């Protein structure tokens, strides 16, 4: 049976051979580099037109990963003798230990690595994870930060991606489809209502004109539901856009003589 102290000696470098100064310096430099990348990305996006944030901010997690990998590659050989058997032994033992103690934490870290190339969400995206909806403000190694429309910051660990559907409204694009709905009493001139709602949409100051505008009608037992599906110029304008469509749409429908109705409580729950 191999002597344990002998195995340890062949695995780790001699205490005197380890440059703790170099390890510390590497750690500090990597930490500063990650901070610099994040700061520069935010500083640059504040100065450039807002559309550029979709091109700049997604690079932050990628660059952070590169920096961390370089730091690990630099630090690990300082501590152990970098032979194949040593690396397997160290990472295997660390894997088992961490697997028991920090299962969820490590799961989130691994998910953080996976999302670098799968990209289910990026900074600037509007996502719904579980019951939380908001704009992705930051993507960390372990978790993603969302800012909800109510200006609340929600931190969602990345490991949610293993078992939770992630609804991404814009997928890295500047715009996203928004829906405004209108309920009209069944006896009305459908063509004029549809045309008027189209006019409401194409005359919105928030409309992204290069994207399609559609008005969809559906007959419900208690009325006709019209949906305007259109895209605002910026995801951030989605609430202003929907409010603009709703207020002007209702006013325009009343002006042409349509009767607006509200859904009965039971129907509202089942139909909307």
């Amino acid at each position, binding site marked *: 049976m191999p002597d344990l102290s002998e195995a340890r000696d062949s695995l780790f470098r001699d205490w005197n051979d380890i440059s703790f100064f170099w390890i510390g310096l590497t750690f500090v430099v990597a930490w500063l580099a990650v901070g610099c990348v994040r700061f520069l990305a935010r500083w640059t996006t504040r*100065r450039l*037109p807002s559309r550029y944030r979709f091109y700049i901010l997604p690079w932050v997690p990628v660059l952070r990963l590169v920096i961390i990998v370089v730091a690990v590659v630099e630090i690990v050989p300082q501590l152990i003798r970098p032979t194949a058997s040593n690396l397997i032994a160290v990472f295997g033992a660390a894997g088992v230990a961490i697997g028991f103690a920090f299962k969820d934490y490590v799961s989130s870290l691994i998910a953080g690595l996976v999302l670098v190339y799968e990209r289910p969400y990026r900074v600037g995206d509007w996502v719904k994870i579980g019951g939380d909806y908001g704009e992705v403000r930051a993507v960390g190694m372990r978790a993603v930060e969302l800012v909800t429309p109510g200006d609340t910051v929600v931190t969602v660990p990345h490991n949610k991606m293993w078992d939770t559907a992630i609804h991404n409204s814009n997928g890295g694009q500047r715009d996203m489809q928004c829906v405004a709905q209108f309920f009209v009493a069944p006896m009305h001139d459908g063509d004029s209502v549809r045309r008027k709602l189209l006019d*409401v949409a*194409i*005359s919105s*100051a*928030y409309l992204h*004109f290069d994207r399609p505008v559609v008005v969809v009608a559906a007959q419900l037992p208690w009325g006709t539901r019209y949906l305007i599906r259109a895209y605002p110029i910026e995801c951030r304008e989605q609430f202003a856009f929907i409010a603009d469509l709703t207020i002007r749409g209702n006013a*325009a429908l009343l002006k042409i003589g349509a009767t607006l109705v509200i859904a009965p409580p039971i129907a509202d729950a089942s139909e909307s």
Partner: protein
Amino acid sequence: MATTHDLHRPENNASALWRFAPATGYDTPAQPASEKVKTGLSALWKRVWRGNSQVTVDQENSECPPLAAEILTEVLPEHHYEAAAASLKSYLNHWLHEANPDSLMQAVIGPPGSGVQEIVARWGQQVSARLLLPPDQERLFDPPSDDWQAAARDEEGVLVIPELERFYLRHSDGLDLMRQLAEWLWVSPRRVVVGCDSWAWAYLSKAVKIDAVFSTPIALESLDGDALWTWFRPRPRGRYLVRTAWNGEVVYPVQLEEGAGSANSGAEDKDPPYKGAHLFQKLAAMSRGIPDVALALWRKCLGEGKPEDIQEGRKSGAPLTPIRVLSPESLVLPSIPAGVSTREAIILHTLLLHAGLPLSILSRVVPPCIGRHRDAGRIARRRPG
């Protein structure tokens, strides 16, 4: 785009400058690649490092005071509307007299500053066509059925609508009149020529499919550096000594550099290769070849000559009034600052779509939270230049 070859035909200078062509082939003058990279990097640098700070005026600007108003009036060329209308007349001449043209509807579009409305109106007067002027903008929110169109419907001959962009508002009630007009044009037996701002045309093409009513629109071709040099030649010729402020290169008159003697000789009509080509290329690129924009830039570039220019002007025989041309790059031009809010962007976009709007209408066309903001008034009241 007007080519150097065309410009060197003296008898054809005016018509070579102002030429119409299908708008689908419209192209803006390009900067040389090195200049483009330099300009792009410079703009990025200013944006990132200076943010919203006011750009400082170049040293050379402070050394060249602005020209006196009477000299400016004499030096600057006339607006191009009349000459461009004559060119439009020759372009449309065949269509106008053809028995069965492919389409009875012809649209002439152009970016802001191209003067397309003025050109079409003058062309209409030249061919004695009936002009249909836009209604009061307040009436666009609730247009009458067709009383103002009645006269136009009943008459015969060519109908000209020089300002199509004044027939709509981007409002849920502001498109009805344009739809009525489009439906009437669709079945009208008359020849109709409309002038329209290109921003409004793009909007109307999406909103009411106005482009389906007309054949391919035509546009005034953009001006390149050679064309600008020809257009900006001071009138009367030879009374001014125009030099660049940064290296003293003589731009006008060309004879002085060639040692041709008298500045008043007719030799200038031969349009020899000229100095300062780089300056005019830059002006063309900065103005995107749009005549009124280029003219405004040229006006800002002109400054009083230096004392040594006056001495030199006296030596050349006839006394020449010296003028210095500032580098277009040194001009402080209006620009959208970094970090501009959506509110300001919406106001500016709305003004572009309508080729300008009075504040009373603007506040009804943009959302109330924007239209009632003080920025709306501030931006809408700004005057060009």
